């Protein structure tokens, strides 16, 4: 058991980036499921702003995934495809009760992603290991994704406050 919070090898880094990809795929898939799962009367109430928020979250996740996959490619590893994660989401999915439930789930998605990148950055910064990907490019990519996740948390919170 390693008690140190640091990334010490390419292998470990790859695995963490793969987990990042899965988290992004989860956001994308759950956002799509939320829109589909709402009953018609809820969907009518599901205002444009919320729908736009989910669509944006899905697009942003797909873009984050591509950036992580480019790093994983350089580490000469594979990722898990979206369809596979979407099928797993499908198998276990329990739709939220209403629009507020959807927003809470979306907030949890964004907060989790932010926390994940924040911990990953800290663990990379704490390590003196050389990686097969350029350290600066790796960290720049993760800083920028983390920033976008932070903005995502703020956007969802804003919509929730407006609805309250």
């Amino acid at each position, binding site marked *: *058991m*390693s*008690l*140190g*919070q640091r*990334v010490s090898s390419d292998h*470990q880094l790859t*695995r*963490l980036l*793969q*987990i990042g990809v*899965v*988290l992004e795929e*989860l956001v994308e898939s*759950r956002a799509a499921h939320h829109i589909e799962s709402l009953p018609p009367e809820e969907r009518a109430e599901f205002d444009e702003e919320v729908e736009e928020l989910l669509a944006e979250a899905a697009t942003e996740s797909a873009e984050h995934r591509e950036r992580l996959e480019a790093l994983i490619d350089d580490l000469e*590893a*594979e*990722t*898990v495809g979206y369809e596979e*994660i979407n099928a*797993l*989401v499908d*198998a*276990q999915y329990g739709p939220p009760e209403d629009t507020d439930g959807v927003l809470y789930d979306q907030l*949890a*998605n964004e*907060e*989790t992603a932010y*926390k*994940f990148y924040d*911990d*990953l950055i800290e*663990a990379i910064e704490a390590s003196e290991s050389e990686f097969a990907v350029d350290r600066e490019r790796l960290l720049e990519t993760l800083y920028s994704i983390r920033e976008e996740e932070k903005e995502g948390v703020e956007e969802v919170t804003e919509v929730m406050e407006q609805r309250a």
Partner: protein
Amino acid sequence: MNTADQYLKAIYLAQRIEDGPASTGTLADLLEVSPASVNEMIGKLEERELVDHEKYKGASLTDEGLERAHNALQTYCIIERFLANVLEVEEFRDEARALESVIDDTVAERLDTIIDRPAQCPDCFDAEQDCCELLELEASGRAD
């Protein structure tokens, strides 16, 4: 998972293995740290009333410590199951140990939404085998 939670999980597993208080030696082996580090941390956990420590016998979890150890073991089980069944990693035990300090509980909760975890988790965790006794493994690795 933070260091305190990793210790509580190890104490829980050591108590199951030893069928009694967790000895410093067993904890040092499980955590791959020195006995001095174990004793230092046990003292801190005792101050926080998460652990009772009896000289020459070992450490036992308090009710609050047990609850936290359960949660930590569930998080660990999620990581193992995710690695084994979603990423199809053969060496999932070693990798879970290497990753647990970097994976936060909230991240594990999200990963939990796509894995199949028995309702009795973590009681079905086999301390000797270092994995859930109900875990079904895929035939081959893929995402390596």
